[in-house]
């Protein structure tokens, strides 16, 4: 059975095609039209797999853009999808820390990929991928360079987590002559601390998977492990956890009787 999961995030769209134990994927920027991004990701994915739309049994959409995808069979929240995808990437995980483009979340699972509890940031972008992008711009750097720039630097104390205020704080630190690397290290630590506080309220996970675009940042990764008191594991496919979970849920859904699944 062939199923597809599409995760339309605020900054990137991820699509996963699942065929038995094989899977392939595409990642592309979401841009300003989540619907178009979803459609294009699907076309690219089908092209890569050499398959037609009709050969896909079931499609599940997730991410903030899930509601704008007319071609999916079902929309499932990114929380449920991340938990399922993370379990597939790393058996036995019981906590997922996800920091995406516009939100961050901590998901506590039962170790089998089912959500037990979760926490999400408020409606602002504090401590998310967008936050890192804004700070990077203020420092004249690209977000992908942040980890290299901060390597080995002693973090400076960043007191504000608000994207707007932190930007002005960064600018005044620069004016004071504080080294760029120290500021970035401070920002990395602040992002990690914020999400670790969220995790603390849910209870401690034993095996933690770190997902979302920000998981690619080695600096945030290190501080997160330090703040959580255990290693936050990142796999090469971390960013795909949501889309993979969606494809897995699509398979489960298609496996149910036609009457029950209603798709």
């Amino acid at each position, binding site marked *: 059975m062939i199923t597809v999961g599409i995760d339309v995030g605020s900054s990137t769209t991820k699509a996963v095609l699942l065929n038995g134990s094989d899977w392939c994927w595409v990642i592309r920027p979401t841009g300003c039209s989540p619907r178009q991004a979803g459609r294009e990701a699907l076309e690219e994915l089908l092209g890569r797999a050499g398959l037609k739309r009709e050969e896909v049994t079931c499609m599940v959409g997730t991410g903030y853009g899930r509601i704008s995808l007319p071609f999916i069979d079902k929309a499932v929240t990114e929380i449920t999808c991340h938990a399922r995808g993370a379990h597939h990437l790393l058996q036995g995980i019981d906590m997922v820390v996800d920091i995406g483009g516009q939100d961050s979340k901590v998901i506590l699972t039962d170790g089998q990929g089912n959500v037990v509890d979760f926490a999400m940031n408020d409606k602002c972008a504090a401590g998310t991928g967008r936050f890192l992008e804004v700070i990077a711009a203020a420092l004249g750097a690209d977000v992908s360079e942040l980890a290299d720039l901060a390597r080995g630097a002693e973090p400076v104390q960043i007191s504000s987590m608000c994207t707007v205020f932190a930007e002005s704080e960064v600018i005044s630190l620069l004016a004071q002559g504080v080294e760029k690397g120290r500021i970035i290290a401070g920002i990395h630590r602040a992002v990690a601390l914020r999400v670790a506080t969220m995790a603390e309220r849910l209870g401690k996970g034993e095996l933690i998977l770190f997902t979302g675009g920000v998981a690619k940042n080695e600096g945030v990764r290190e501080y997160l492990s330090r703040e959580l008191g255990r290693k936050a594991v990142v796999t090469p496919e971390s960013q795909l956890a949501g889309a993979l979970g969606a494809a897995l849920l699509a398979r489960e859904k298609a496996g149910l009787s036609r009457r*029950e699944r209603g798709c």
Partner: protein
Amino acid sequence: MRPQIMKIFENMRNDNALSIQSAKKNGLKVVGMFCAYAPQELVLAAGAIPVSLCGTRHEPIAAAEKVLPRNLCPLIKSSFGFALTDTCPYFRASDFIIAETTCDGKKKMFELLGEIKPVHVMHLPQGTDRNGALQWWLEELYLLKVRLEENLGVTISTDNLRSAIKVCNRERKALKELHELNRHDPAPMTGLDMLTTIFVKGFNVDKEEGTALINQLAEEVRDIAARGISPFANGAPRILLTGCPVGIGSEKVVRLLEECGGSVVCFESCSGIKVMEYLVDEDEHRDPMEAIAERYLRIPCSCMSPNKGRLELLGRLIDDYRVDGVVDLTWQACHTYIVEDELVRRYVRDNFGLPYLQLETDYSTSDIEQLKTRISAFLEMLSGSCSS
């Protein structure tokens, strides 16, 4: 199947605004109240009409923010905004206003409100576990009685108090009977309709008529339940909503919970069970003022410290309504409810092992999508990831 009579309830807030005006033309006085602690019996015994002024709409908030700080709870800002902009017919109709020191934001707002209308602020005790608490509250009731008599030019007699007690108790019993119909599984009535019904009782010109209408609705819902009809899909997760008061205009979380597939079967808040659960002792040998004081002090609001009554009530409701999950709705900057959330969370988790979701929001629509994600994820968690 929706009860036919709901149409009447839906339009009641508007319809009754006209009735209030004609009642006033006939010389009746109107007393506005902000919270469940306001003793309605005294108002009725004074021959006046008690109406609810608790702000539940977003529209007047911008006007309120010209005077009040932005980081205040939406309920206070909405209430004050209605007064400032003169857009609430019930506020306009009020001859006298009863307020309480429930929280810091409210009690200071009432000082400003006093510049617009005559306001009497009742001082609540900080908790109910001290020896002097009931006596304190009783004295506050006597002071209110004097103020009402002065302002409305009437005398509140013991006989009138006794009959007002009966009228209010009848309304409470009727509401509770209706609310308990949602103990049925599946629930025969949506949470949104239930909320509408409870909400509009605050705008009744004639309480007896209002109670009769609630009984009529209950009759219809009982019939729907008996036929096993429900507005919900089979297996819809049964939700208990607790926390800050909710009304029509601020019902977005109730609406989202039900749009996303949940069934809100129980409202544990002062816009729900808390106003129906406790009756005033009707014993004719007792001082009615003392009986009234006792009843109101039983309301388990987060402004009381400690507030163990809320946990006990929650425990009972979780069992009685066989709920699948608890949602704690707190308005931004409502400190007492937001802090108390931690105690409620632990209580629900440790004693019932039930999934629990806290939502903090305001009356605006700016976070609808974020709320939808949280609520959908919570419901997916309750019903197994594939049947949401």
